[in-house]
């Protein structure tokens, strides 16, 4: 790059004022929740007898897990916005959701007779789960990656991965309101796959578009 070009870019940049990336990320996350929620209600809606299910521990447990996944990913994405904190991303935070889920799986294995286990894990909606969660999460992923681009992630691929998990967490939270498979065995089998799709996509997109 020639010095004249540098000066030209600098002067062109000088007029644009960008806001701090954190508020933009909060806004993107909020919009993601709204979009995913609207998309679900417009298409599939929550499942029948939703309010009755609110008394079911296994139904509520799904939300504990997916919200934990989303929150832990949110913490990482927020750290990734800043070049200093982006250098040390405590990825172990992402294990909080799976750890909670593992406890649920343990309880479920103890409670279920062994004959019912594989049926509970396979469920009735596995294909739906694998398509709906990525579908609900794709717009949130775009929004979050947009906020990430405004920041300065020093590891764009990893930051994109976290953005994918965050989008997946939001999407899974809403999908869980529709899905009638409440067993932690089903959640442990299919949700990670569905969220993983978004995470891998996020990593690839982040690697490409979040570098600066």
């Amino acid at each position: 790059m020639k010095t004249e070009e540098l000066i030209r870019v600098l002067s062109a940049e000088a007029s644009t004022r960008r806001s701090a990336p954190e508020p933009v990320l909060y806004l993107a996350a909020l919009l993601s929740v709204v979009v995913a929620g609207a998309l679900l209600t417009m298409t599939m809606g929550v499942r029948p007898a939703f309010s009755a299910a609110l008394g079911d521990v296994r139904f509520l447990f799904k939300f504990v897990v997916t919200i934990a996944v989303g929150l832990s990913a949110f913490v990482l994405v927020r750290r990734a916005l800043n070049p200093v904190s982006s250098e040390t991303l405590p990825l172990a935070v992402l294990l909080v959701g799976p750890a909670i889920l593992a406890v649920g799986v343990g309880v479920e294995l103890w409670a279920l007779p062994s004959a019912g286990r594989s049926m509970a894990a396979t469920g009735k909606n596995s294909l739906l789960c694998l398509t709906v969660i990525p579908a609900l999460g794709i717009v949130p992923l775009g929004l979050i990656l947009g906020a990430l681009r405004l920041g300065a992630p020093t590891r764009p691929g990893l930051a994109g991965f976290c953005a994918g998990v965050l989008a997946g967490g939001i999407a899974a939270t809403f999908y869980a309101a529709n899905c009638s498979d409440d067993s932690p065995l089903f959640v442990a089998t299919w949700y990670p796959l569905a969220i993983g799709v978004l995470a891998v996509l996020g990593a690839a997109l982040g690697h490409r578009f979040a570098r600066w």
Partner: protein
Amino acid sequence: VGQSGIDAEDIVQETLLAIHVKRHTWRDDSPVTPWLYAIARYKLADAFRRQGRRPEVTIDAIAETAAAPQTESAMQWEVDRALGKLAPGQRAVVAALAVDGQSISETATNLGMKETAVRVAFHRGLAAITARLGRRP
């Protein structure tokens, strides 16, 4: 940086530009220096990554490890050992012809032999050495 084929000035420029473009990512409640260093580190790492994808090594950098052309030559002790195993007559002929580089007629005169006898002795001497060392002279 200087030795590795990456232009330090390029990185300085990229870093300055990034500091400018990403200035909104600095939080005014945090110190500036770590933020500046983080950007510089990222730009340096980025330059190395880009170079790693398309490595460039100048020939000067590997010239030392490249083999120099070697002239094939026998060590003195090798010559001595080869000659030492020969019969005295053959040794004198082979030493005169192959080592000292005399001609056949000179050798014949010096040793008081016929030229044919010199040729035969030379041939047999070389054959004996070849047989012992297991390769062609």
